[in-house]
């Protein structure tokens, strides 16, 4: 086993462990913090793959913005929600079953990808991954259409959010 | 000069025959109203007689006669002398008087104070709780039959006032710690007055305005203080917040209460003079002035010319130093990190130097005496005053003004925030800069000139918008006017004695009542003194502008952001020594 593999396993354990804690912990804010740990693990995975841009963006967007909004929301709610109440519902087993099914599907999918069982080849020396990624996102041969569609979707969501907020204010 | 003659035109007994009679006791004035007719009479006072400004409400306990009296001082905001209206009720529990809050909302805090200290219940008061004493306090301390737990004597047990051998200190009779007894099972260390908090929060919720649009949200109650850096002392503000917006607000005070008035009634008349310094400890000269005026009215003496000029000069210097402090503290409350404050303090120090030169103390001056002032100006002080008030201060005030008033952040945070409209300002009995910034040109120096203010040429500053920015700016205006008065006074200052009577430890004060009011830096400062011919006043009441201005604090803050609460409080400019007394 190489150092990278050890690192990968450790990171995997971190992600899974903290993901488990997200649903297992009793305190809402702690759950949000475990989520942050899980997201951070994903960023480490990107870093192991030398996808430095994605690693950094993962931190900026998921940890720096989305998770902090979760925490923001948690802090604005009442504190009574903290330590009481049943943690599972009666039909939890359906959810567990569904989760297992999805896991199986994912494993199946990953195994179907050619070369999923091999280590990634080292990137060529001097390759500017950021530039390559940027080019891929905006070049017509590659991903410009999905990229633009996603932008439009986000814009629509943004406009919707503004609308909802402004309607609430006027009444 | 006797007590101010009641306005002849305002003949209340002709308007309400039978239920209103003139107060005929020797040395007294005003009108005695039947209890049942009080609301009707006050309504008529406000609406028909134009006395729209309730300056002061206070109680008097006439223990020997078995009566209690509530005294209302009402004035016209257009100026001129006011009216004294009194209600007498038998001294049998519960003592009850109808509340005038519905007619003069400015009575709210004052009636609470009377309830707290005298135990006079005001029926119809919206929020009658104790205010200066804590909830659960036994008795009403300003009643004459209430004995202080520690000094259980009628007068202070000083050797000079008791025959040799008879004098004994209360402390030696009741060593500290043994003079208090508790009910069985009561531990003062563990006692938490829960009811008080409940009553307070209940009062907050009463004023709640609920916004029903959208999601139901919780309101948070935040207690600012009593330990908080921007409450200017031990003052507590209970705020109910919706997010950061203030839904309702209640000031909670009394943490610095030492029952100044009770002390004043135990002291001799002259002994009270240094005590007045401690009321608004930033403007002691002005406090002295008001008290001296009240007692001089009773004694019927007038200070000599030179003393009058010195008094006016000192009072105006006090105003400048107080306003400098107010400007500094307000900008500090707006978050300017001490810089304007320190620039203002630098100038204030120079004024305090002059106080030190004339009185020997920088803040607790104790400079005024009945019929004059304590000492003349020492040599060289006049030159110092000239240098400071003709040369340095005008320039420095302009400089501070220039730096602060064009600052975009101060404009943004001040303009249109914490507005007190002119009607509200009168309604809530606001006084001083707070009232004038709302567009009411009411200044006691003009409305009812005392001392020699009728000789000076100055303007009554007024600003129209009643927001935080105007309240900041009006202080600059007033400093400039005070400079003008001082400059005139220095030029006209005559030679001569500074005291009309020989200095004495004891003064003889004829029986009667007197209300002396001055335009203090924070507003109308009034002293209501009743003498029964004994060495100590029978009643000694302070109309504290800081305290009464706080009546408008809640309404001014409703709908503002929490950050503005601090700025609004700073713009009212309170001193806790005066609020809690």
């Amino acid at each position: 086993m190489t150092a990278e593999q050890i690192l990968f396993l450790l990171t995997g354990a971190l992600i899974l462990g903290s993901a488990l804690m997200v649903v297992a912990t009793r305190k809402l804010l702690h759950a949000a913090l475990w989520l942050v740990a899980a997201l951070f693990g994903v960023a480490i995975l990107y870093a192991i793959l030398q996808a430095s841009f994605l690693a950094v963006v993962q931190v900026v967007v998921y940890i720096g913005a989305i998770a902090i909004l979760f925490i923001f929301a948690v802090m604005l709610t009442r504190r009574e929600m903290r330590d009481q109440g049943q943690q599972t519902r009666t039909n939890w087993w359906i959810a567990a079953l569904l989760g297992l099914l999805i896991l199986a599907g994912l494993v199946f999918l990953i195994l179907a990808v050619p070369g999923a069982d091999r280590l990634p080849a080292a990137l060529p020396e001097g390759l500017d991954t950021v530039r390559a990624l940027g080019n891929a996102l905006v070049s017509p041969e590659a991903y410009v259409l999905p990229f633009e569609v996603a932008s439009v979707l986000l814009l629509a969501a943004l406009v919707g959010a503004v609308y909802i907020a402004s309607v609430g204010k006027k009444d | 000069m006797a007590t101010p003659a009641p306005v002849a035109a305002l003949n209340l007994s002709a308007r309400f025959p039978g239920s209103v009679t003139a107060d005929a006791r020797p040395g007294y004035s005003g009108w005695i109203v039947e209890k049942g007719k009080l609301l009707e009479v006050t309504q008529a006072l406000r609406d028909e007689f134009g006395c729209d400004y309730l300056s002061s409400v206070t109680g008097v306990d006439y223990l020997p006669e078995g009566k209690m009296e509530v005294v209302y001082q009402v004035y016209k905001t257009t100026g001129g002398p006011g009216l004294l209206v009194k209600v007498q009720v038998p001294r049998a529990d519960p003592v009850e008087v109808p509340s005038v809050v519905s007619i003069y909302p400015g009575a709210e805090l004052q009636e609470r104070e009377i309830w707290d200290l005298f135990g006079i219940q005001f029926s119809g008061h919206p929020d009658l709780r104790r205010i200066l004493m804590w909830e659960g306090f036994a008795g009403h301390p300003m009643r004459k039959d209430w004995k202080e737990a520690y000094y259980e004597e009628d007068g202070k047990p000083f050797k000079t006032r008791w025959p040799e051998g008879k004098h004994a200190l209360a402390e030696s009779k009741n060593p500290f710690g043994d003079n208090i007894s508790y009910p069985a099972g009561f531990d003062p260390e563990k006692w938490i007055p829960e009811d008080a908090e409940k009553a307070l929060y209940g009062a907050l919720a009463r004023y709640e305005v609920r916004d029903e649009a959208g999601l139901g949200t919780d309101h948070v109650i935040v207690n600012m203080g009593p330990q908080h850096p921007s409450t200017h002392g031990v003052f507590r503000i209970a705020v109910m917040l919706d997010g950061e917006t203030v839904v309702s607000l209640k000031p909670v005070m009394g943490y610095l209460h030492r029952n100044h008035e009770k002390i004043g009634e135990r002291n001799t008349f002259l002994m009270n003079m240094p005590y007045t310094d401690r009321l608004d400890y930033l403007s002691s000269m002005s406090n002295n002035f008001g008290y001296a005026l009240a007692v001089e009215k009773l004694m019927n003496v007038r200070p000599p010319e030179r003393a009058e000029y010195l008094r006016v000069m000192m009072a105006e210097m006090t105003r400048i130093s107080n306003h400098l402090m107010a400007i500094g503290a307000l900008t500090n409350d707006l978050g300017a990190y001490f810089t304007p404050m320190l620039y203002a303090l630098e100038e204030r120090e120079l004024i305090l130097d002059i106080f030190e030169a004339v009185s020997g103390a920088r803040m607790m001056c104790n400079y005024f005496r009945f019929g004059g002032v304590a000492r003349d100006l020492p040599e060289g002080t006049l030159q110092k005053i000239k240098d400071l008030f003709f040369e340095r201060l005008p320039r420095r005030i302009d400089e501070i003004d220039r730096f602060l008033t064009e600052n975009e952040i101060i404009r943004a945070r001040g303009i249109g925030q914490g507005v007190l409209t002119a009607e509200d300002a009168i309604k809530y009995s606001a006084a001083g800069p707070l009232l004038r910034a709302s567009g009411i040109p009411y200044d006691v120096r003009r409305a009812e000139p005392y001392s020699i203010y009728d000789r000076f040429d100055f303007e009554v500053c007024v600003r129209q918008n009643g927001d935080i920015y105007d309240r900041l700016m009006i202080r600059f205006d007033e400093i400039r006017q005070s400079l003008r008065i001082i400059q005139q006074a220095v030029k006209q200052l005559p030679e001569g004695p500074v005291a009309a009577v020989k200095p004495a430890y004891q003064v003889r004060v004829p029986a009667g009542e007197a209300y002396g009011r001055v335009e203090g830096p924070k507003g109308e400062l009034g002293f209501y003194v009743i003498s029964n011919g004994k060495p100590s006043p029978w009643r000694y009441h302070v109309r504290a502008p800081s305290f009464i201005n706080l009546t408008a604090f809640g309404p001014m803050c409703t709908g503002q952001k929490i950050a503005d609460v601090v700025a609004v409080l700073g713009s009212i400019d309170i001193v806790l020594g005066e609020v809690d007394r």
Partner: protein
Amino acid sequence: MTFASILEWLIKGFVWVMILLGGFAYLTYYERRALARIQVRIGPNRAGPLGLLQPIADAIKLIFKEELMPARADKLLFFLAPIITLTPALVITAVVPFGPEGLNFPLFGRVITWQIADINVGILYIMSIASIAVYGIVLAGWSSNNKYAMLGGLRSTAQMISYELALGLSFVSVIVLADSTRMIDIVEAQKSMWFMVLQPVGMVIFLIATLAEVNRSPFDMPEAEQELAAGYHSEYGGMKFALLFMAEYDKMIAICIIAATIFFGGYREFWFLQNTWFSVDQTPILGPVYVFIKVFILLFGMIWVRATLPRIRYDRLMAFGWKILLPLSLALVFLTATGILLAQEVNPLFMWGIPVVSLAAGFIAILGMYQTLRRKEHARA
């Protein structure tokens, strides 16, 4: 990744953290002296010559202070929060180069650079660390179980998220100008012209946004003394408070270093020293000195602002961030990119269009702000 390289990182990191901690101590001294000068006072002058030992005295006092833990606090988070706050402040400058390549020296067969980590997404690394810096404050506020602290925490969250957008967009202008996200490339791209000249409005936005990011006056909402007592660190005392305090001041230093690097030419010489002996090309050792001088000046700017400006109200602060800074910085990114494209495709002189048009945009923004203020003023009369 060899043992030697890890050792190198460790040593460099250790040295840099030591410098930052010492810098924190003397930044407090610097701030207090400078503030005192502005406020016609003297400032600390008792401990040691010129009061130079004052920070040490403060540290000793803080160490011996009693540690308090609020009764119903979240114990673990309360303990962790200062650490979480301090860490980003210490690691954020890891990618900043402090000297030119000419200053690198060989040691035990390795070339030692004047940079802890040379990663190709350096500027984005800064962005990401800046975005997680808010956690410590939020957790400190939440775990104290105190309304003031919590309000402070909430305010800081909202404020930092809002101003991060403007901050990130001003980074984008720099990336576009330098055509790289590597810090050393960004510095070298400013060899002939600082980005301060090419994108002056971007620089101003960056400085304003960083003031908000590090909670300095006039954006010191989270700890607004007059409103929230001390905000998120109301309940902290002793060394835990010292850590929070340290984080705040190290953030100041870090942000000034970053500003110096991306807008003021980093370790490059001042423009008027080009092609002289003082140029880092000829005398590489001057590189770190230039960084120090620039940081010193920028820090003074921050102190100056604190001494002279009152605090903006919270809702105004948010409005300013979202309604003015964000659209303006978006416009600037667009303007910068267009300018560069035109310069490449048409005429290099279009490069000068960037500052001109940006200044015009900034002017329009200020005018808009002014108009809204004036309108309010007319409305009241």
